[in-house]
């Protein structure tokens, strides 16, 4: 899908694909233009971005010292 204008419903359908950076340039530009003038869609996209950031944070976890030692021992074996 590549087009100059996009409406709210179409944007919501493409929302996650847009955030996943899987859309081709023309549609991205249409969404960017829409977001510059639609407060409702802008709020929605910002919400999903915030949530995504929080989910991303959940992927970082302090590794146990035991694991660090185990990896060091593995390297020493070679």
């Amino acid at each position, binding site marked *: 899908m590549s087009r100059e204008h996009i409406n709210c419903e179409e944007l919501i359908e493409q929302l*996650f694909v847009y955030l*996943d950076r899987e859309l081709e340039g023309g549609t991205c530009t249409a969404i960017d233009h829409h977001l510059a003038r639609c407060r*409702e869609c802008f709020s929605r996209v910002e919400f999903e971005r915030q949530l995504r950031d929080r989910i991303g944070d*959940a992927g970082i976890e302090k590794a146990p010292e035991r694991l660090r030692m185990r990896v060091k021992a593995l390297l020493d074996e070679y």
Partner: protein
Amino acid sequence: MPTTDIHKQSPPGCAAHRQLFEDTVTRLMDRLYGAALRLARDPDDAEDIVAEALGQAWGKLDQLRDPGQLEAWLFRILNNCFIDACRRRRSRQDRETELEEAEFEDEAFSLFEQLHQPFLLWWGTPESEFIGKLLREDIQRALDGLPDAFRVVIVLVEIEGYTYEECARLLDVPLGTVRSRLSRARSLLQKALWQQGREAGLVPAGRHRPVAKHGGAS
């Protein structure tokens, strides 16, 4: 990106290689372990996956042609170790428990639709406040509660930044399957967060709205 042979400057197994590898692993350890923990859910399994992945990576470091790709390469090996562990467990248990397509309701759920109040646009944003009040543990619990097939695609795409195509290749499923799993995963994740939020008193207990379309720019 130009390809640089990691072994042109120094031979495999030399001190410089080990230093590069160790420095990278030290820098990435919390992310590698975090990704493994979100994938496997069990701390002991996560440790085994990371150790296995790093052992494999170190053992075949001479296959890496571009040192700039070391980080992506380590995550790829980590994910493969997890997938292999799932497949081994599945064959041991002789039943489809991992990475299978499960039956779930198809109704899409949107946290935003539940929380957003258009008339408050200028005075407050309950949806952002809700996210601000979510604990790290809330998100981990919601992620851990997802069925394997759905949890894995969320971890790969939203935590590790995989493209749909990379995801499809790794999981050996069609691109359309990645898309549909991702969509259902997000719906289930948001529903779980909504339910947890209600239990924690972050939203009024009786509040539950059907998903509504809004009017705006067209």
